[in-house]
C-alpha cells in the first residue's frame, strides 16, 4: 500500500486538469488491464526504450530473455521462467568496462552504458533477486557499471499462477508467487486479463502515459487472483531461514553432507553463472599489442583459483569446500549480513547441476537433521 501512496502522491503534484483522474484512481484499490490492452501497452513501451527484454521462445521449449523491440515474439503471458535471469544483462558473463587506447601510455576511454532497457515478464523470484543484488552493488560502495544499467532499467513483473518447475521453491523462500518489492509494474494474470500493481515512480509514469489502457479491477478479478495465489502456496511451508543460518553458522551441518557434495560437484560453474543473486566477478585485459579493453567477467566460489593467493597458497584447498562456499554465502553469510538469505528458490542451480546437487534438498536435510 505504501507504493500506492507514492503513486498517488505523485499524481497530486500534477496540475488540476488531472483532478478527475485522481478522484477516479483514489476510488480504486487495484487496476486492471485486458490482454488486448496489454498488447497495446507493450507496443507503446517499445517506443520508449532501446531494448525490450522479454521472455521469448527460442528453439523448441527454450524460454530465454531476449531483446524483442524489433524482432517481436515476446511471450506476453507465459508459464515457466527464462533460462537466464535479468542478471545476465546487469552483470553479463563478460562485458567491456573501458577501452584501453594504450596500455604502455596508460590511456583509457570510458564506456558509458546508455541503453534504456525495459525488462518485461520478470518473475517475482528474479525481481526479488534484483532487490537483493542492490544490497551488494549499490549500498555503501556503488558499482558504477551496475548502477548505470539499473538507473536506465524498468521492471515489469508477472506474478506466477503456477510453479515454473517441479524443483522451484520460491514460495518456501518467500519470493513468490508475487513480487513484493523492486518492480515498477507488476501484472497478476487472471482469466480476463491482469491485475496491475504500481511499484514506483517509473511505474506510475507509465500508467499516466497509458492511462486509457487501464481500468478499475472488478472484485471478481481480485478474488480470482487471490484464489490463484493461495493455491500456489498450498501444502508448502516457508523455510525457517534464520534457523538454517544458525545451524550453518554453528557448523552443525553433518560432514557427510559436505563430503557428498564434493563427490558431486564437477566445478561446471553453471550455478554461479545462472544464480540470479551471484555477484562475484573478476577483470581481465584483452590486449592486441598495446590496444584493447578491460573486461569484467563472472567469477566465483566454485573455482580453486578464486581465492588462491599469489605464490600458490590456498586458504581453502579442498575441492569439496569450494562448492560449500556457494551454500555458505547464500544461506549463512548473507543472512548474518543482511538479515535474509540470498537464495530465491528459482531452482536454476538445481536444474543445471551435472552432479545433481540440490540446494532445496540440502536445506531440508540440514533443517530436519538438526531437529
Amino acid at each position, binding site marked *: 500500500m505504501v507504493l500506492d501512496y507514492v503513486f498517488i502522491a505523485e499524481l497530486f503534484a500534477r496540475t488540476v486538469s488531472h483532478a478527475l483522474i485522481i478522484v477516479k484512481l483514489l476510488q480504486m484499490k487495484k487496476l486492471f488491464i485486458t490482454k488486448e490492452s496489454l498488447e497495446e501497452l507493450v507496443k507503446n513501451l517499445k517506443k520508449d526504450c532501446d*531494448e525490450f527484454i522479454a521472455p521469448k521462445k*527460442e*528453439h*523448441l*521449449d*527454450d524460454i*530465454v530473455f*531476449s*531483446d524483442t523491440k524489433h524482432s517481436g515474439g515476446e511471450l506476453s503471458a507465459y508459464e515457466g521462467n527464462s*533460462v*537466464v535471469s535479468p542478471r*545476465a544483462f546487469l552483470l*553479463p*558473463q*563478460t*562485458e*567491456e568496462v573501458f577501452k584501453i587506447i594504450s596500455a604502455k601510455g596508460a590511456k583509457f576511454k570510458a564506456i558509458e552504458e546508455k541503453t534504456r532497457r525495459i525488462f518485461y515478464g520478470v518473475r517475482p523470484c528474479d525481481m526479488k533477486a534484483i532487490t537483493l543484488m542492490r544490497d551488494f552493488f549499490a549500498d555503501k560502495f556503488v558499482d558504477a557499471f551496475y548502477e548505470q544499467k539499473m538507473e536506465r532499467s524498468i521492471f515489469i513483473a508477472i506474478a506466477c499462477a503456477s510453479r515454473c518447475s517441479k524443483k522451484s521453491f520460491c514460495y518456501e523462500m518467500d519470493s513468490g508467487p508475487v513480487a513484493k518489492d523492486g518492480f515498477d509494474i507488476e501484472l497478476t494474470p487472471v482469466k480476463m486479463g491482469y491485475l496491475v500493481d504500481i511499484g514506483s515512480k517509473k511505474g506510475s509514469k507509465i500508467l499516466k502515459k497509458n492511462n486509457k489502457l487501464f481500468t478499475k479491477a472488478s472484485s471478481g478479478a481480485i478474488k480470482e487472483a487471490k484464489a490463484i495465489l493461495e493455491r500456489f502456496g498450498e501444502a508448502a511451508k516457508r523455510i525457517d531461514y534464520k534457523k538454517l543460518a544458525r545451524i550453518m553458522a554453528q557448523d552443525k551441518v553433518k560432514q557427510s553432507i559436505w563430503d557428498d557434495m564434493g*563427490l*558431486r560437484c*564437477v*566445478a*561446471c*560453474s*553453471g550455478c554461479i*553463472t545462472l544464480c540470479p543473486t551471484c555477484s562475484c566477478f*573478476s577483470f*581481465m585485459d*584483452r*590486449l*592486441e599489442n598495446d590496444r*584493447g579493453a578491460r573486461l569484467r*567477467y563472472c*567469477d566465483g566460489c566454485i*573455482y*580453486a*583459483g578464486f581465492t*588462491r593467493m599469489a605464490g*600458490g597458497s590456498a586458504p581453502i584447498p579442498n575441492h569439496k569446500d569450494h562448492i560449500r562456499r556457494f551454500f555458505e554465502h547464500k544461506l549463512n553469510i548473507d543472512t548474518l549480513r543482511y538479515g535474509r538469505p540470498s537464495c530465491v528458490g528459482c531452482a536454476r542451480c538445481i*536444474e*543445471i*547441476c*551435472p*552432479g*545433481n546437487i540440490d540446494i532445496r534438498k540440502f536445506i531440508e536435510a540440514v533443517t530436519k537433521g538438526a531437529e
Partner: protein
Amino acid sequence: MIKRVLTTCPYCGVGCGFYLDVRDGRVAGVIPSKSNTVSKGYLCVKGWHSHEIVQHPDRLKKPLIKNNGKFKEASWDTALDYVANRLKDIKAKHGSDSLAVCASARCTNEENFLMMKFARAALGTNNIDHCARTCHAATVSGLNQSFGSGAGTNSYDELPFMDCILIIGSNPTEAHPIVGWRVRTAVDNGAKTIVCDPRRILSAESADVHIQHYPGTDIALINAMINFIIRENLHDKEFIEKRTEGFNELEEAVKSYTPESVKDITGVKPELIKKAARIYAASKKSCIMYSLGMTEHTVGTDNVIAMANLAMVTGHVGREFSGVYPMRGQNNVQGACDMGALPNVYSGYQPVADKNARDKFEKAWGVELPARPGLTLTDMIDSAIKGDVKCFYIIGEDQVRTDPDTHMIERALKSLEFLVVQEIFLSETAKMADVVLPGASFAEKEGTFTCAERRIQRVRRAILPISGKTDGDIICEISGRLGYKMEFDSLKVCDEIASLTPLFKGVSFERLEENGLQWPVPEHGHPGTPVVHLGKFTRGLGRFIPLKHKPPAEVPDKEYPFILTTGRMLFHYNTGTMTRRVSNLSREYPHNFVQINPKDAETSGVKNKGRVKVKTRRGELTVAAEVTDKIKKGVLWMPFHFTDEPTNVLTNSAFDPVCKTGEYKACAAKIEKL
C-alpha cells in the same frame, strides 16, 4: 543488438547444445539449451566458457608466409596463389602421393568431406587422415571386426537407467562431463558402477568396485572377467548361440586367464575382478563405457575387441539399455571419421579399394580417383622423415604437441619441402609452417558436428569469419586454383554427402533442425537409429576374437622403474590452445605437473609441489610433483595440455599395428627430485 545463436559445443565429443549470446557483434556469453536432447541445459566448465576464445586477440587474422625464417602477413590472394603453386609444383615433381592432408576433427562434417574430396579429387591422393588416428582409430578397427560397425552402439539417454556401468580407461566427469552427469544420475537411481583405472578418479569415489590395474594390462583383466563369468555360468548362452560366432575359440583362449593368474600382471586382487565380473554379468541392464585409456596402446584394437567379447559373452549388446560406449574426445572426431577423412575409406566407410564405391565417387566428382589406400598419420610422419612425403597440409591440429614423441614429429615436419597449416591460433605446429592460413572457429561457420552417440547436430554462424574465410572456403579456393572447382555452401555439401553415402541418405539441414539425427539414416524420412545391432549385428553374427595379453612396448625396468601414463583433465582441452586462453580455466591449472603415489614419493624423496624431472628414453621434462594416493603405486600420471611444458616429449610413439595409434598411456619413466 542482441542475437542468440543455437549451436553445438566445440570441445569434447559429447555434443552439448547452447546459444551463443551475441551483443553488438561481441560473443559475450553462453546460454544452455534445455531443449537440446544431448545436454538438456547442462554444460561443463569448458562449455560455459566457450565464448571466450572466439574473439580472443591472439586469433590469427591474416595469412602468414615465412620468409627467411620469419612470418610476414600476406593478402589472401597472395597466400592462396602461393600455396596452390607450391602444391602444383610438388605434385608435378614428386607425384600425388608425395602430398598428404591432415583433416580436422574440430571442423564441420561438410568441411571434412571437402577436405577428403580435395585430397582425393584435386590432389589425387588417398593420403588423408586426422587425429582419430591418435585417439579412437582402435574403436573403428576393433568394433568393426567384432560387430561390423566402428561406432558407439547405444544412446546417452539410456545411461541413467542402467543397472551397471563398467567404466574402463575413461574419466567421464572430467573428460565428458555431461555424460558424467548421466553416470551420476544412474548412481543416484541405484545403478552399480565399476571403475577400472590406475587413478582414483571422481567416478571411482562413488563406485561399487574400483579396479586399480596397471596401465596396459586391460586384456588380462577382461579375459579374467570373461573366464570367471563362464566358470560361474553367468554367460548368456542363448545370445551366444543365436547372435555370435567363435565362442569356443574364445572360451579356449581365456582358460589360462583366471582372476588369480592375472594378479601379478594387473596388480589387482582376484576378489575385485570376480566382484566386478559378477555385477557386470548378472545385472540386467549393463553397459561398458571406455575411452582413450583403452585405445592409446600398442594393443588398442585388441583392447576394444576384448570389450566387445565381454559384452557379447553376457549378451549386453544389441539391445536397448546395454552396449559399448566409446567416448569420443573431440567435438567432431566421429564426424571426421564418418566423412572419410581416413586413408582407406570415403564417407560412410565405403572402401576406396572397392571398385563400385570408387566408380560412384568418380562419376559424381568427374575425376579419376586413386585406388590404393593412402598413408595413416603415423605413416605420414615416417614417410616424411624418409623423404617420400614432401608436403603436409594440416588443418586444425597441433601434431607437435599432440602426437607422441615430440622430437620425432619435429624432425618429420622439418624434413618436409612445404608445410601448410590452417589454424585459429599460432600453435607450435603452425610455427613450423611455411604458410599459415587463418581458419575460422565454430562460431563463424554453418555446418554439422557428429557426437559420440552418432548424432549429427547443427553448428550455426554467430559472427562472420574473423579472417574473412571459413576453413571450407579456404579449401575450395585452393582447389579452384588447382583447377578443380568444389561447391562450398554447407547446405549443398550436406546434400552431396547424403547423395553419395548410404549411411546418411536421409540427412539434410532441414531434418537436423530440431534435435539432429543419429546415423544410420538410410532413407529420406527415416527417424535415425538410437541403438544399432538390434536383433542382428551389422556384420551378421557378432564375432568373438580370442586375445592374449601383450605388455606395452616399453615396460618398467631398473633404469626406468615407473609406468608413465597421460590423460586429460577437466579444466583443459588437448594442447590448451583454447582453454589456456580462458581466464578462469587457465587460472585453475596454469602449469603442468606429475602425479605420484605417496609411497613412491617417499622412496624417491619427492615432496608435494616440489620440482622434479621426469625422464623417459625420449626426453625429459621439469614439472611440479603432486603427491596423491589417488594414483596407483608404481604409476606416474601427467596431463598433456601445456604447450610450454609438453608432456609428449616423454611419450612413446610405438603404435598399434592395426590402427597405428600411439602408446600414450604406458611407457617407462623415472623421476628425479630437483
